């Protein structure tokens, strides 16, 4: 490793340290000043913070080397190829594939199944619980795939994003009126859990890449917005699932 690379590494480590500083300050202030408790396992804490620091630095570096370029390269390649079918299929696969195995979603689905059983919507045996949770997971994954497809189509057509979002809001409000009360909180949260740390950079790069390679599209106005729509549709689909399943 040359002196130059070493300097870059140190600079990115320092940037990561600045990113983490607020958490450390918040925890220290509340723990020492308000709760007046010593910090347990100080050594473990320091080792953990060091790991987080190193991890964040590597992640950001990998983002700029791998995720951003591949997302953009693929967007350019699809735009050049001019095949709408393959682009939309790719969009669906990306949304569905990244969501269906998402650990946060699996946790939420299990929680929702327990709640449905407690309400007597489904039988309280493990098979029924697992079936309900699995169905919910696939529902959300399909809804994210669908959202990315619609979002990509919107970039190609140049529709303003607010039409999709406001339309989605109306969907959420209507579903809230009819969905079982217990599922509403989980449904609202499901929108937030579906967009993972790896999906976000990739999908953003895809959107911005598409918008910059299609004539007449502005990467700022048309390139962003995919994530927003992908966090809105799961709410509607989860409430729908709560009404239909069981």
């Amino acid at each position, binding site marked *: 490793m040359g002196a130059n690379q070493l300097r870059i590494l140190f600079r990115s480590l320092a940037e990561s340290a600045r990113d983490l500083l607020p958490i450390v300050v918040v925890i220290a202030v509340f723990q020492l000043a308000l709760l007046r408790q010593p910090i347990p396992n100080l050594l473990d*804490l320091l080792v953990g913070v060091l790991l987080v620091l190193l991890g964040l630095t590597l992640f950001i570096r990998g983002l700029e080397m791998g995720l951003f370029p591949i997302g953009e390269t693929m967007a350019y390649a699809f735009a050049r190829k001019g095949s709408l079918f393959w682009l939309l299929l790719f969009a669906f696969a990306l949304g569905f594939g990244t969501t269906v195995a998402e650990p946060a979603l699996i946790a939420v689905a299990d929680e929702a199944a327990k709640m449905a059983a407690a309400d007597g919507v489904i039988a309280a045996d493990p098979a029924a619980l697992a079936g309900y949770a699995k169905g919910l997971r696939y529902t959300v994954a399909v809804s994210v795939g669908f959202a990315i497809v619609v979002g990509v189509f919107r970039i190609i057509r140049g529709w303003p994003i607010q039409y999709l979002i406001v339309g989605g809001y109306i969907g959420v409000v209507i579903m809230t009126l009819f969905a079982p009360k217990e599922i*509403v*909180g989980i449904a609202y949260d499901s929108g937030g859990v579906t*967009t993972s740390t790896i999906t976000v950079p990739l999908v953003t790069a895809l959107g911005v890449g598409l918008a910059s390679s299609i004539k007449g599209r502005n990467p700022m106005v048309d390139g962003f917005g995919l994530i927003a729509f992908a966090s809105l549709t799961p709410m509607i689909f989860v409430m729908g699932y709560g009404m239909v399943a069981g």
Partner: protein
Amino acid sequence: MSGLLAALLGTLRDVLPIAAVVFGFQLLVIRRPVPNLKRVLLGFVYVLLGLALFLEGLEQALFPLGRLMAQQLTAPEFIGGGAELLTRPLGAWDYRWIYLFAFAVGFATTIAEPSLIAVALKAHEVSGGAISVWGLRIAVAIGVAVGIALGTFRIVTGTPIHWYIIGGYVVVIIQTLYAPRLIIPLAYDSGGVTTSTVTVPLVAALGLGLASTVPGRSPLVDGFGLIAFASLFPMISVMGYAQLSRHLGRSRGAPAGSPPKAP
């Protein structure tokens, strides 16, 4: 060490479907060599390794402490202000330290959120530097902080969540009509990106702890919903930030409709 290995395997499981989709389409449909393939693959390895280290570090150090603090702060002894039993029922004001903690944790975890860093870097690049990385991140973090603080207030008071969410939607729609056109899609996206690796576990612990402490709340029904607040309010704060920058720019004589300039 075994924890690190487990984190690495977990991250691998997350990355595999994505890598399969990306490289599958690349090989079968696009059929063009990827420029700098070696570099891209190395980047994927960095992402994998970085995320695993990041998660393991959080799990080892920050999450246990954060959960412990959420428990301590929501414990009835702390809220009651000492060992003596209160003769009056607890009011919303007695939980003031929790709102403050929710605000601080929401802000601090959002600043460290890797996917927000990614989107901010991209927005900075695409806007030609008009949107500063830190300006966007701080605006989003304030939104998350206010959202989570309000969310804990909702758990304490027990008001139905949908009134807050629908009210937030109305504000978002009104702001959409008036905010600078360039910021709108980015503001919408800021809602979705804030809630991933760092924020969710801490905030979920806070919500569940609070819902099991406050009399009359059920963790199952009231413990959820904080994430939804954390994804709604950044939209409002980012559009608000852009509107404020434009307003300040105008009163200083800048041309109307110019992109927001970060401080």
